[in-house]
């Protein structure tokens, strides 16, 4: 490390969030060094669905998702082909009249805030997705929601950061954060004005006491069945399960990939550190998907895997300083929205490093709100 000046920011973790932070900071003129223990984009970034979705369950979530969606959209033309950025839209499926009423309220709310959304009745839903089972009530189509392949976005972001002067160290594990410095597992030590911690569900390993827990998820990918479904399909009950406090839940969530393959999810499980496939939960998850898409039963599953979302007690991410740790900025706790909100997060982090104002209120994401709460 001798000779070169200390970087202004050390980004620890090169998943989609860390890579976006490094990219944003480097392009803003900050001297950035990125430290990644494994393969960049090889953690939760590679395990998730890559759904860029403007969720509207609450105001802070909506604001960050909408800003990030706009940033994704602006970047889309520049992304490499491997990023597979497409806009199938999200079709929220209503199973009954009660869910359709909720969909109607959400359609109006989206519409009033400039998000293209339309309500489908049962017949329109069947026309939009003929493989869905009969007897569903309708749906809510959010047209501009996108799908991306994040493992190919991360190297592109890191390349962009490098071109703006950043240094990227893949395969270098950070063992400890010591004030405005990190100590690496290989013994090296690096200092910086800011340490940006973006190690997702593993953040508490470097900052004990952080209120971040691992929420395990399962996914399955099928062989190629082009046209089987056309939109990202999610049951409207998803928000209940996604934000539920129960230790375990499943929800119907199927995504058509540009390859013609289908990603089938989803499950949520708290308090499990083992990354093995849990067949009991996987069965529940698949049964749920088969309830909505009976024709999936004879389609072939190629692979199943698991990943860990970084969950916080209130469902909002941790973006900003952590009390008692000068120079530390957190960029974690994104739960299932890390891909969607990576760029909004990076923008906020850059604003904090550079002392700029932000385009949206930071308070809902500031980690201080959870200081003192048990992880």
């Amino acid at each position, binding site marked *: 490390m001798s000779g070169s000046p200390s970087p202004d920011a050390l980004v620890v973790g090169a998943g989609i969030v860390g890579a976006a932070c490094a990219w944003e900071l480097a392009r803003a003129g900050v001297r950035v060094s990125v430290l990644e223990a494994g*393969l960049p*984009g*090889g953690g939760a970034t*590679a395990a998730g669905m890559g759904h860029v979705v403007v969720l509207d369950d609450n105001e802070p979530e909506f604001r960050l998702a909408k800003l990030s969606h706009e940033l994704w959209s602006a970047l889309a033309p520049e992304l490499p082909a*491997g990023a597979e950025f497409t806009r199938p839209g999200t079709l929220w499926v209503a199973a009954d009249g009660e869910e359709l009423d909720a969909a109607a309220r959400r359609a109006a709310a989206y519409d009033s805030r400039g998000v293209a959304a339309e309500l489908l009745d049962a017949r329109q839903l069947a026309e939009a997705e003929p493989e869905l089972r009969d007897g569903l009530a309708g749906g809510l189509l959010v047209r501009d929601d996108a799908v991306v392949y994040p*493992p*190919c976005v991360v*190297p592109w972001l890191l390349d962009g950061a490098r071109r703006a002067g950043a240094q990227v160290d893949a395969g270098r594990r950070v063992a400890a954060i010591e004030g405005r410095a990190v100590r690496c597992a290989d013994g090296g030590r690096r200092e910086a004005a800011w340490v940006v911690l973006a190690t997702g569900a593993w953040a508490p390993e470097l900052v004990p006491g952080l209120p971040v827990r691992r929420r395990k998820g399962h996914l*399955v990918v*099928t*062989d190629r069945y082009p046209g089987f479904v056309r939109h990202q399909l999610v049951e409207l009950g998803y928000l209940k399960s996604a934000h539920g406090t129960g230790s375990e839940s499943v929800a119907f969530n199927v995504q058509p990939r540009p390859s013609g393959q289908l990603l*089938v999810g989803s499950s949520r499980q708290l308090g499990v550190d083992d990354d093995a*496939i*849990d*067949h*009991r*939960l*996987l*069965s*529940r998850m*698949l*049964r749920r*998907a*088969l309830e909505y898409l009976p024709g*999936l*039963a*004879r*389609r*072939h*599953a*190629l*692979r*199943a*895997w698991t990943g860990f979302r970084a969950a916080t007690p209130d469902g909002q991410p941790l973006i900003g300083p952590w009390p008692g740790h000068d120079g530390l900025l957190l960029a974690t706790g994104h739960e299932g929205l890390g891909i969607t909100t990576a760029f909004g997060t990076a923008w906020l982090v850059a604003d904090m490093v550079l002392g700029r104002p932000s385009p949206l209120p930071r308070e809902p994401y500031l980690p201080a709100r959870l200081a003192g709460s048990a992880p």
Partner: protein
Amino acid sequence: MSAIATVDCDVLVVGAGPAGLAAAGAAARAGAGVVVLDDNAGPGGQIWRGAGAGVAAPDARAAAPWLDALEHPRVQPLAGARLFAQPAPGLALAETPAGPLAVRHVRAVLCPGARELFLPFPGWTLPGVAGAGGLSALVKSGTPVAGQRVVVAGSGPLLFAVARELKRHGARVLLIAEQAPRGRVARFAAGLWRWPAKLADALAHRAALAGVPYRTGSWPVEALGGEALAAVRVSDGRRVREIPCDRLACGFGLVPNAEPARLFGCAIAAGGAVATGARQETSVPGVFAAGEAAGIAGLEAALAEGAIAGLAAAGAGEIPAGPRRARERARAFGAAIARAFALRDDLRALARPETVVCRCEDVTRGALADQPGWRAAKLHTRCGMGPCQGRVCGPAAEFLFGWGAESVRPPAFPVRLESLAAAGEVPPGGTEGP
């Protein structure tokens, strides 16, 4: 939720090739109730494929006494059954033509055999280019080759058996191209007296293949054709000959099918075979492995290891000296083959930047050249992410780039979603754990 079909047994045998048949027979005779799973339509594995179907195969007589194991009253054979998950110790899930099936067992003997090593070269994806064992298997299952011109290429004694099988079905075998140099092959042949059965095989092959040229130090460098094979270019390192043909049967040796053992959590030895001990036990209590998956050593080793594993899995105390001695002899033969038919470095240079390495996802060598390892290649190029789950491109990439494989997760083979969904719905077992 409907409970899935379930069978209970003392010993689950995975694979009905020679090792699996020997294991099933030994275990049943020792008193165990046995279930044998095999993903093929009939038993026999690759070497005895079709031998049980009444086809007049030359191997039928050799296979018959071993196939008898499946007639034992304590043995339940299940054909077309593909192992894909092990949700818990003592519980295996298979997909069968009738739907998913749970096999609750006390012990397991894994005998999934080996597959061929395929190395990419320009044109290797053309219809008409198949594995050496691959074309042999296809022909044994009825694929017509009569009157067709075939070049057999690659490495190992398997090439002779394949050429002979093709000739028996009426093919015109134009050439057997062996990549190993003449000197090594000659030394191997000169040492065959130590394995009389192998020497007899070799002499029989030679008689049956009279008039078929066998060239050592020769290997295919390119397959030519539009939508199908028209010719193959064969090099001897100095010059390249172009041979018009209808088919190329090409395999560069064998790769242990270690995936079922990985699924069961067994340790893998250097070289990719399942690590086993004196009783064919793996690192997982109650799980045994035998045959090519436990080390490439041929038919006799598979039969001996299968018998030992079957006895051990049935709880027999002593392992008789006969199979133990047969195993040692056969393994020495396997080691001699590995030395004689080691692959030449020239084969690493066959694939051009535009040559496909991963056939499922059409990932080229050029796309892989910059990748730091197998996982990065998977994530960034989709190499190995297709339905073969890296079984073809994984060993090729290991040969080309030195990358190692990853762990195996269920489903170990592509299966219907309804099968995978059933995996978590097995009723509690009545059997003891291993």
